[in-house]
């Protein structure tokens, strides 16, 4: 909302500069974006062109002698409309124009120029506000402009404007009167009355005109008739105030409807009475009904849109925009004024679909029916004064609205309890008096009559807010809540997992959960029902991800494209899916590794399956799952993974994740990923960390090399050895894997280092040998292994 300070000063006596006003308004909750002069230019003066000759060296420049009172300036001007005798806006040398343009003395094609003759555009007026004449050249001041005077003041454009960013609940501030009350509350000033006076002439309109309301979505509908209006340009003050408020002047009648809307907040609509086919009615549109609006666009309507009709056809989209057929034209003589309130939610839905207008903006926020009456009277007042109109007696009234003040009571104790300070009773009363509310108070409580204009106030907490706002939140001293002390809790595990991954040299990412519908189904073999957005912003991000890996893959692609080849990243994020009609979201830990991985001690290694697997193992052991996890190859691995280099991660035979190389059809690089469903993993109980006694007897280390068929899995060999030795085995480590002709084709040799730690005695040579022999026997029986010779 752009506030013209000249306009609001009609209703409130204030003498503060525009910045102070803007800051003071901000302090009570009305934030502003910009505050300054309507025409932000210095060193302007009214001049008269005494002489105007053609520039000898140019086919369009003119050389002018311009009288500015104190001296006569030589100015070169390129405007086609400059001529002898014209009164002009001169920006003198040193003048600063909008856009940081500074006027300097100069020479234009050999001729000195001591200033510039200005167009309205050069003075900073947006082009939509320019008249046809102003678009083509410099601004022509009227003949009575005083030479040497201030042109901005002469034009009535010495206005200051504050552009407010208002909160959604303060529809009342979309009006000059609303602003006046608000400003009055700051400076303790009374709002002046609005002039509604006019004559009423002829036979009562109710004898010849009716309105029929066929919908509950119209609470009040008033109509008046004004005859014999003269369509012409508006007086300067109306035009300037509209411009300052961001509305383009059109003609006096149309401008008056906009002016009254700005003043009262009540949008009006004027119909050309002679183009109406009958009386006005308000109804819901028929499905598919068509209406060409003022902007000459044919709109297709639905039965959710409220329309005004003249009995035969829709002539206006209620609350949004009028129809083209009945608009005010230069030939219009007689006007029907509509002042009405329509259902905010319906107007909002229609305007969202069709068009946001100044009117719909106000209807959406709700209106005060008292203003509905005020606005129609005010329009008559102005039409009589500035359009020579004859106001016809009477008003057609349909009204189901409540207009009396809302009475709300609140105790002083309640006010103080919520604000956390003691506001003296007197101060509370002052707040409501300043706001222009009446009240009655006892020792304990205050009963406030809240005018209808303040639609945002309906409960006692709203009154408390007003006290806080006007009394000033700066007067409240901050303190901490007094609540019994207890330790705060948080889930440390997620943080521990992150820290562990970071300790393993991985970089944490933060990715978008929205992916495209193909990615949303990747890295799983489950038949995932993709959760698609109803209204995505782009097709690239139209679905919620199931797996976090596609998000990480995108990050890898981004880095790869920026020539960052070594990527070791992880993220804990949500994956989403729907199963058995239930939406679920799960915390997942995903990791992606490619390029060189830093092993520590200045060594790097090219990432392979085992490095990535090592990370998983480290993490699982850190989380207490040592000895309980397995990597299992199933027939149905996700198709995004290399079929020969991928596995499922299982804990006690329950799958909790996947690991593998990204399938070569997706990328030429060697990219390895894993993902663990953390919710599933962490729901599994782990043993408490407890001290285990260190054996007093010496540990015996023995190496054992066996030869097996190459299909035999290391995991299985280890399992057999563990089972074979039992509790005596304190450590097992694979230290060599060998393939070669000397051990036979399709064979592989695996060398293990075993640590045997007895609990209750020193091992004898015989016992050690017996243990080793049993291992070999078991391995041979279960896996066909032979001792390597």
């Amino acid at each position: 909302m752009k506030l013209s300070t000249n306009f609001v000063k009609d209703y409130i006596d204030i003498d503060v500069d525009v910045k102070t006003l803007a800051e003071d308004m901000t302090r009570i909750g009305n934030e502003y974006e910009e505050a300054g002069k309507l025409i932000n230019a210095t060193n302007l003066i009214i001049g008269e062109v005494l002489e105007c000759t053609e520039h000898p060296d140019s086919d369009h420049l003119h050389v002018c002698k311009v009288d500015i009172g104190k001296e006569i300036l030589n100015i070169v001007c390129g405007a086609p409309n400059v001529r002898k005798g014209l009164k002009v806006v001169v920006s003198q040398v040193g003048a600063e124009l909008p856009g940081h343009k500074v006027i300097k003395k100069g020479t234009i094609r050999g001729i000195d120029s001591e200033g510039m003759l200005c167009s309205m555009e050069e003075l900073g007026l947006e082009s939509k506000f320019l008249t046809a004449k102003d678009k083509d050249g410099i601004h022509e001041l009227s003949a009575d402009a005083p030479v040497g005077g201030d042109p901005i003041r002469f034009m009535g454009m010495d206005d200051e404007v504050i552009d407010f960013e208002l909160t959604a609940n303060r529809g009342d501030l979309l009006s000059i009167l609303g602003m006046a009350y608000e400003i009055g509350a700051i400076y303790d000033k009374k709002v002046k009355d609005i002039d509604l006076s006019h004559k009423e002439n002829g036979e009562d309109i109710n004898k010849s005109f009716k309105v029929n309301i066929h919908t509950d979505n119209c609470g009040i509908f008033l109509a008046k008739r004004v005859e014999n209006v003269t369509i012409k340009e508006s007086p300067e003050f109306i035009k300037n105030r509209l411009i300052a408020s961001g509305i383009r002047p059109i003609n006096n009648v149309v401008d008056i409807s906009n002016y009254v809307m700005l003043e009262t907040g009540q949008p009006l609509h004027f119909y050309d009475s002679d183009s109406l086919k009958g009386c006005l009615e308000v109804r819901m549109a028929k499905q598919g009904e068509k209406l060409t609006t003022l902007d000459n666009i044919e709109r297709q309507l639905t039965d959710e849109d409220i329309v005004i009709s003249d009995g035969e056809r829709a002539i206006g989209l209620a609350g949004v925009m009028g129809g083209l057929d009945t608009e005010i034209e230069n030939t219009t003589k007689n006007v029907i004024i509509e002042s009405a309130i329509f259902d905010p939610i319906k107007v909002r839905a229609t305007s969202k679909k069709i068009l946001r207008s100044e009117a719909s903006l106000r209807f959406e926020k709700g209106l005060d029916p008292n203003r509905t009456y005020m606005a129609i009277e005010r329009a008559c007042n102005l039409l009589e004064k500035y359009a020579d109109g004859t106001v016809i007696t009477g008003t057609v009234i349909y009204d189901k609205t409540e207009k009396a003040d809302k009475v709300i009571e609140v105790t002083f104790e309640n006010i103080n309890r919520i604000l956390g300070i003691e506001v003296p009773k007197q101060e509370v009363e002052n707040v409501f008096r300043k706001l222009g509310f009446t009240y009655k108070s006892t020792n304990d409580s205050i009963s406030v009559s809240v005018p209808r204009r303040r639609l945002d106030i309906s409960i006692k907490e709203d009154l408390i807010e007003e006290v806080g706002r006007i009394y000033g939140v700066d007067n409240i001293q901050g303190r901490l809540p007094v609540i019994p002390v207890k330790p705060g809790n948080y889930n440390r595990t997620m943080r521990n997992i992150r820290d562990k991954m970071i300790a393993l040299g991985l970089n944490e990412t933060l990715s978008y959960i929205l992916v495209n519908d193909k990615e949303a189904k990747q890295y799983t073999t489950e038949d995932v029902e993709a959760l698609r957005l109803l209204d995505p912003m782009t097709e690239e991000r139209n679905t919620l991800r199931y797996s976090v890996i596609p998000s990480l893959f995108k990050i890898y692609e981004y880095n790869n494209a920026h020539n960052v080849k070594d990527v070791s990243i992880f993220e804990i994020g949500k994956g989403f899916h729907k199963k058995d009609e239930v939406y679920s979201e799960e915390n997942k830990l995903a990791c992606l590794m490619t390029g060189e991985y830093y092993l520590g001690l200045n060594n790097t290694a090219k990432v392979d399956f085992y490095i990535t697997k090592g990370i998983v193992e480290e993490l699982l052991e850190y989380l207490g799952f040592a000895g309980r996890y397995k990597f299992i190859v199933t027939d149905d691995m996700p198709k995004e993974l290399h079929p020969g280099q991928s596995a499922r991660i299982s804990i006690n035979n329950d799958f909790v994740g996947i690991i593998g190389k990204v399938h070569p059809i997706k990328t030429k690089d060697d990219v390895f990923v894993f993902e663990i469903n953390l919710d599933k993993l962490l729901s599994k109980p782990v043993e408490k960390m407890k001290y285990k006694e260190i054996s007093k007897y010496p540990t015996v280390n023995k190496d054992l090399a066996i030869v097996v068929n190459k299909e035999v899995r290391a995991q299985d060999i280890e399992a057999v050895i563990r089972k074979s030795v039992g509790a005596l085995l304190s450590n097992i480590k694979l230290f060599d894997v060998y393939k070669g002709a000397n051990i036979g084709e399709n064979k592989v040799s695996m060398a293990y280092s075993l640590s045997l730690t007895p609990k209750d005695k020193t091992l004898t040579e015989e016992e050690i040998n017996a243990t080793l022999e049993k291992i070999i026997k078991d391995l041979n029986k279960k896996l066909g292994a032979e001792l390597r010779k």
Partner: protein
Amino acid sequence: MKDQINKAKENSTKEIERCKSLKELNDIRVKYLGKKGELTIILRGMGALSEEERPVIGSLVNEVKEEIEKLIQEKAEQLEQEQLNEKLKSEVIDVTLPGKKVKRGSKHPVNRIIEELEDLFVSMGYDVVSGPELETDEYCFERLNLPKGHPARDMQDSFYITSEYLLRTQTSAVQARAMMANKEKTPIRIVCPGKTYRRDDDATHSHQFGQIEGLVIDKNISLADLKGTLEIFVRKMLGDNLKLRFRPSYFPFTEPSYEVDVSCFKCGGKGCNLCKQTGWIEILGAGIVHPNVLKMNGYDPEKYSGFAFGTGLDRLAMFKYGITDIRLLYTNDVRFLKQFDRKDEENEIKY
């Protein structure tokens, strides 16, 4: 015999002096003091001496022996020192060559902020809770006093997946969940950091962004309590000497509502491009929980009151680390991520 002894003394002294290595020194020891050494032989030959001479010569031999031993000892120490010096000299390395590091990865700046906030609020007795990101319209809006068709819903254009389910637009959704779960049983003191989503994407807005929500409900919780809490929060995160400005505002779920500005930490309030010349930076939204919200979620507004606040985590991270483009937080350029691999500086606690 005396001469013989003195000769041995003289010779050995010279030899020890000339000696260059521990091995040579040992040879000298053997030569004079060994089993077949000169002085040992003399001692053995003493049987041929008279009773009177024997003790004289005996003590002389022992005297010389001791002297030689002492010399050898001294020489040995000297040689050992020299040898050590030699060894140390040969072992000089270039200490400026790079160390062999075990390097850590890095934590995302937004998560760093979350952890810092969690630690702060946990220290004040708050519980950190989480809620679903795929939320129902009921919890995201309706239970927060935002019925369908409410104009304030426009402030938060949403991603719906059905008419009922959407990606939460605000962590405030957790407010209703916390109240419904607690039902007046105990005071509520929670913060909820998490991801939120709105249909909005430009240089300063990301369709996905982080928020933290705070909620305190008990008897007699006031605006003054909110103010004090936020003063601690903002100063701890952004700087001790900052000023706060509470600007009345509007949120459907709080009444009264405030937007909180902090004096610009870049220019100190004089006006700069960060604060758009205003001297203030909007940092969070807050207010007293609306009685409708209390009522709808099982709390009697006549008995209980509370405050709630919410702020953007991405912005806090950007302020804290001087990040100028929000997109950097989500593109995850590894060169960007790796910059966050150290601990944050901390103010020393002084008494």
